[in-house]
């Protein structure tokens, strides 16, 4: 069942983040993805997330599609101007990549090319509008296309924002939806209640919210997130649980698995699992 039909049927969709390699060999990426393909509705291919140079999302997504795996390709505002963005969207459409997730792109400072120049010619909403425009057979210059691609569009939403930032985020989310986004991916959740203020202002009947389930690795990693990312709330109990655990790795996968179940229970449209370097734990997290 395609991601689109899964959404239409109202069933809980499971998305799994599949990082393209930092190199030209795709075998490891495929080896992690293929064994779980029956449990996953779409493999989300991030585009240089965390500002780390990797193989392009387009290239990796094509490789996955070629193996019969459904993908959802990320496209970011950070690295290309509007021509390059549209060009890649057309390429994706041609290669059978029907799910597109527009993202702003992480700050280059946190990555491995802090010296690089960020483009950011289009913002998130404008990027979505561009994709929408292509679907209607016209580019952003107002010129007609010979044929139009067809996408299921999604975007990220900083649902963990608070205060003034939250007001701004809700505005952006609404604009994203107006610009054609049909689902929104939130930052990692460890407590459903932490995005309640955001959810209250979004019409959940018409908007599919897909929270991220991030696999923690250690108490130190959790404390890093807590100290450096104010939009992700990790309750102290979660960190204490890892600290006190004898088998910390197992406890981390338990926490992710339990979160996945909690999101399903809470009636979300789906969840995106992000393992960041621990792809080998995916089977354990997805275990029934």
């Amino acid at each position, binding site marked *: 069942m395609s991601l689109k039909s899964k959404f239409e049927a109202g069933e809980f969709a499971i998305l799994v983040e599949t990082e393209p390699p930092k190199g030209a060999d795709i075998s490891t990426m495929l080896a992690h993805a293929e064994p779980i393909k029956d449990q996953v509705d779409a493999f989300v291919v991030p585009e240089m997330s965390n500002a780390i140079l990797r193989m392009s999302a387009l290239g990796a997504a094509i490789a996955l599609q070629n193996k019969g795996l459904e993908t959802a390709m990320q496209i970011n505002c950070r690295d290309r101007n509007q021509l390059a963005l549209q060009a890649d969207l057309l390429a994706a459409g041609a290669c059978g990549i029907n799910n597109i997730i527009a993202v702003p792109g992480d700050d280059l*400072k946190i990555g491995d090319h802090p010296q690089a120049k960020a483009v950011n010619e289009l913002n998130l909403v404008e990027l979505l509008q561009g994709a929408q425009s292509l679907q209607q057979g016209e580019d952003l210059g107002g010129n007609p296309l010979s044929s139009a691609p067809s996408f299921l569009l999604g975007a990220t939403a900083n649902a963990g924002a608070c205060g003034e930032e939250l007001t701004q985020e809700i505005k952006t989310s609404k604009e994203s939806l107006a610009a054609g986004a049909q689902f929104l991916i939130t930052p990692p959740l460890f407590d459903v209640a932490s995005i309640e203020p955001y959810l209250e202002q979004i019409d959940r009947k018409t908007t599919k919210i897909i929270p991220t389930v991030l696999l923690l690795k*250690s108490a*130190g*990693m959790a*404390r890093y997130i807590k*100290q450096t990312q104010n939009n992700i709330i990790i309750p102290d109990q979660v960190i204490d649980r890892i600290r006190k655990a*004898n088998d910390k790795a197992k*406890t981390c996968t338990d926490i992710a698995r339990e979160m996945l179940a909690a999101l399903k229970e809470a009636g979300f449209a789906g969840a995106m699992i992000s393992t960041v*370097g621990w792809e080998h734990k995916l089977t354990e997290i997805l275990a029934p």
Partner: protein
Amino acid sequence: MENENKKTRVLVIGSEAAYQEMIGKSLDEFEVLSATSEDEGLALARNERPDAIVLGYLESRGTAYGLHKKLRSGWITKNTPLLIVEMGGDDNADKRWTRQEALEMDADDYITISADDSASISLLKETIGLTEKITVRMGERASSMKGKLLDPNDFCVTWEQIPGRGAFEIAHEEVLDNVAKAATGGKIDAISVTDNPGGNPALSTEMLCVQIKKAGMEPLVHLACRDKNRSEIESLLCGMAAEGIKNVLVLTGDYSGSDAFEGLAKPVFDLDPPNVLRLVEKMNQGLEHKAMRKTIKLAATDFYAGACVSPFKKLESELMGQYAKLKKKVEAGAKFIIPQLGYDARKFHEILTWLKVNNFNVPVLMNIYVLPFGTGRFMNGNGIPGCIVTDKQLAELAEEKKADDKGKAAMFLKAAKMYAIGKGMGMAGAHIAGHGITYEQVEYIIDKGEELAANWKSLIAEFDYPQDDGFYLFEKDEESGLNTEVYAERTSRPKAPLMYKFTRLAHHLIFEEKSPVFKILKPVLGWVDNSTIPKHIMDYCEHMAKVSMFNCMNCGDCALFDTAYVCPMSQCPKSQRNGPCGGSNDGWCEVYPNEKKCIWVQAYDRLKPYHEEDNIAAYTVPPCNWQLWQTSSWLNFYMGRDHSAKRLGIKPPEPKETPKK
């Protein structure tokens, strides 16, 4: 103990001088080692084995992340607390981990120090609290059982599991189910696993304990001396240390069972518990050994080892041996005590009183064995070595069995009452065991026990099960039904056998360094020792004489001096050289009931007429040195090679000048 007072050592790794200085100053309560490169950091972490590692920025970016992975996957450093401490602020943006690296971080803690915090050391100490954080992280890696036992406000509960025989059996699933429930329940502090119970093969406790640790419970490994020699014990301990297993209960072990592969297994008993505890203590301080003429000190382990004692002995001679050996265990480094199972409250209290009177500060766990009638009847018939169920108790069990539930409720209530009594009388915890009991039943014992603990004194009368004419170490406190701190009179009046009188005389003549015979013999035997034929003749004659008198098996490291001339190597099936095991009954050997008296009962009875019975507890006899096997122990003694000579300071003869080549 040396290692208890050791200053915490923290390795700080970071290439910037300012960072090293700042962290170093904020950790002034610790001994700080510093490394400024990846190679230096890795080398110090491995060679110096710090108690914790603080890792900051290393030139160039990505190096610190790479080192962190090496530390985490390294054999030596995998369990060392690792804290990533970075400088905040925009100036340092390119000196922090990339987010990608941070999201793959496998560390115990992450701390950013902002520019404001780093303004002064006192501010840094206060806001960041690195010292406290390191202490807490170290505590998390330490034995929580130890923490519970040493905390006077806590009561530590351990639950004993029996590993089944076989590799894939339902019994093992049951153990893991129990462990999973205990991990969720949060009322049990450690799961103990017996070591080849009954002396028959079972799944190895060490292996099972690794799984138990993974399943989220702290394990307590039972380490019995029956099936492994000193090398195997050390090797297993090393493996356990590497797996992060800290708690060990050292016991002699039942005698070999008859259910092993094609007959009874060879009983090893190479070390006895006092010597295992000495080994553990040395490992904890860094075991030293010689290789290539150099002394090599191995990295220290962090075991928390305890011992057993069996106060449920009828005879004075039996009980005194128990306490003599317990003294050696405590002096060797036993950090906690789990007594043999029993049901006489005054006997449990006896251990606490003995410890108090002797100024030993060692926590004791109440042994609560949930006892059904059938097992009680078996124990009453001396079916399980060292487990005492008196006729009075058996009659009560029989009465309780008549209830509709076959005595089940009464059985668990009794266990809860024992919990209450243990807690009330000042034990530091409870060790709960019982065949086939469920987690829910254990939880009932704990909850009900806690409820009853306030009225523990009123329950003592229900656990009054003295053996007929059973000896108690202390005078009874009639009011409480327990013990006073006044030693009871030791009224036994044994007579020394004629043979012992003769050996004493011979001993004084031949084996006292001051005796004229010794002085004459020493140079003669020195000559014999360097000869071939006279030495053979001497070996033969000594062996023949000692076989006829002591059943000598020619171990060459003679312990007759230590046991009033009752040979522990040939006469004790468990070769106990430091006191009795827990298995004797009414003075009889566990292996030969009603046939042979325990050698330590014999030794006590031989020494008492000379008022020398306290000699049993006087010193710890080292394990038999098998290098001396099948050699003349007389020569070994005279030439300063055996343990007695070393203890008495008998020196080997001066080496002759080596001829020039």
